[in-house]
C-alpha cells in the first residue's frame, strides 16, 4: 500500500525530535558515530584550559578523568529521565534513545564552544561569542537579572550551545541518511526524544561540570 506523503506542517513538527532512528537504521552511521565521540577528549581538554580558573596545561589525566565522569553522568541522568520521558514500552529503549541523543548533543555543543573560543583566541584573548552577545559588561535591563546570576547565566549560555548542537546533529543525521547505504537488519525503532528536553539536560550537566572544573578547596 503506498504511503501518503506527509504535509509540510507534519514534516516541520518532526524536526522537534532528534532523529535517532535514522542513525540506528544505517549500518555505517551506527558504527561511525559512537567512535567520533572519542573526539570529545581533546575538546574537553582544550575547553578546561580556556576557562578562567580552569585546568593547568599539563592536566592530561584530570581531563581524561573528567570526560569519563561526564559520560557516566550523562548515562545516569539519561537513565533517570528515561523513567518518565520519552514514553516507551521498554525502559531500555527510552534510555538508549536519550543517552545517544545527549552524548551527541554534548559533543556538538562542546565543539561549538571550542570553535567560538578558538576563533576568538586566534586574533585576541579567547572569549565566548554567545556570552559576549547576551551579556555585555553593562547589560540591558531586560537581561541584567540573567547576566548577574552566577547560576542562570552559564545555564542560558550552555542551553544555547546545546540547542545549536542538537540542531546541528539533527541536520547531520538527516544529511547522512540521504546517502544510500546498507541498512541494519536487527533495527528496532526507538521513541525519539525532543531536542529541547535533551538540550536542557545537557546544559545543566555542562554548567555543573564547569563549576566542578573551577572549584577550589575552601
Amino acid at each position, binding site marked *: 500500500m503506498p504511503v501518503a506523503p506527509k504535509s509540510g506542517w507534519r514534516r516541520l513538527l518532526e524536526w522537534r525530535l532528534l532523529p535517532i532512528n535514522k542513525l540506528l537504521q544505517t549500518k555505517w552511521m551506527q558504527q561511525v558515530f559512537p567512535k567520533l565521540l572519542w573526539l570529545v577528549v581533546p575538546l574537553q581538554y582544550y575547553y578546561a584550559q580556556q576557562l578562567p580558573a580552569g585546568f593547568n596545561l599539563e592536566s592530561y589525566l584530570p581531563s581524561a578523568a573528567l570526560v569519563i565522569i561526564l559520560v557516566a553522568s550523562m548515562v545516569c541522568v539519561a537513565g533517570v529521565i528515561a523513567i518518565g520521558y520519552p514514553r516507551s514500552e521498554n525502559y531500555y529503549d527510552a534510555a538508549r534513545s536519550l543517552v545517544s541523543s545527549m552524548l551527541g548533543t554534548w559533543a556538538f555543543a562542546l565543539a561549538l564552544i571550542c570553535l567560538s573560543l578558538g576563533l576568538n583566541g586566534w586574533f585576541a*584573548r579567547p572569549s565566548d561569542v554567545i556570552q559576549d552577545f547576551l551579556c555585555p*559588561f553593562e547589560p540591558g535591563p531586560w537581561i541584567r537579572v540573567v547576566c548577574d546570576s552566577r547560576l542562570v547565566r552559564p545555564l542560558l549560555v550552555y542551553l544555547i550551545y546545546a540547542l545549536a548542537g542538537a540542531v546541528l546533529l539533527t541536520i547531520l543525521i538527516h544529511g547522512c541518511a540521504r546517502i544510500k547505504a546498507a541498512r541494519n537488519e536487527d533495527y528496532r525503532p526507538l521513541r525519539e526524544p525532543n531536542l529541547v528536553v535533551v538540550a536542557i539536560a545537557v546544559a545543566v550537566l555542562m554548567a555543573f561540570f564547569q563549576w566542578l572544573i573551577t572549584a577550589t578547596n575552601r
Partner: protein
Amino acid sequence: MRMKLAVAVLLLPVSVGSVVAQNFDEQAICAAINKPGLFYARSQPPYQYAPVNGAPLSYDRDARFVLITAPVRPRQGHDYEGVWHVRTQTIAELSKRANKAYVYRPPVRTRCSRDVLPAFEERDRLVTLTEYLDHHLSNPHHPRQKSYDLTRRFHMPIQDVAANDCVWTDDDKAFDLNGTYGFSDVNRRDLDSAFEVAMTLVPRAYASSSSYQGLSSQFAYRDTPHGVCVSFASPIPTGPVPHGGWFSNAYDDAMQAAAGWKPKSTLLVIKRLEGRRVIPLTSKMITWTDR
C-alpha cells in the same frame, strides 16, 4: 621604641566577637582622622587610628586602611577621576597558603558607566586565586577567558581625559594587567583546582613559590582624586580554613578564622589609575605586633 609601644597599645584588638559582618561608617572614620595620609583605623567608635609609616600595627580583622588625599584647588577643564587600586599580600603563622583572593570594590557609577555597576556580595568576595590570576593575564603566552563577574563586579570603565575616551580598568590592550593587578611571587602554575588535586596520581614535583596566607585586591572610586577619603579592608586569611557549617560561605569562614589569625607582615601596594596611566603611590611592608 616608646612610639612603637604607644601605637601598639592604641591599636589593641577591640573586637573579637562573634559578629562576622563588617559594619563601618566610612565618613565617621574619615572625620575622626581628618588629615591627609595613609592610616590604619578601627571601624568602631572612637575610631582609634595609627599612620602606616613602618611602625608595627596591631591586627584587627574589622579595621580599615584609610587613604586621605590633600585637597587642591580645582583646575580649569575636566580632571581625572580618583581610582585607587590596593593590593595586600600577607604572611601569617600557622595558616595555609592562600588559594583565594579577597576582591572588592563598592557599587559604583563612573563617568563612563551607563548605570551603577554592582559589587560582589559579601559571600562572593573570596574568588578563586586562579580565576583572579587568569583574569589578569598571569600567563600572557596562554591567555584564558576573562571572568565575567570580575569585569562587572570588580573592574569599571573610567575616563581617559587625555585620549577623550573611556577604558575598562581590565582592558588588556590598555594596561599591563599582570603588572598592575597581579600578586608578586604568586605563580599560577603552583595552583590546582580541587578536581585536579583529586584526579592527579602523582603530586606535583616543584615547590610552591608563594608563601602568602592572605591576598586581597581592592578598588576605590571617587569622582575626583583630590581632598577625598577612601578606605580598604584589613587583610584576612584566604587559604583553606575550617568550615563554619552547612550554610556558611567562604567569606564568613575566613572572617571567623581571622579572629584567631596571626599575621606577621603585609605588603601593601597602592596605585592610582589616571585613564590609561598607572601611577604607583606607595609600597609598604607592614609588620604586625604579636597577638
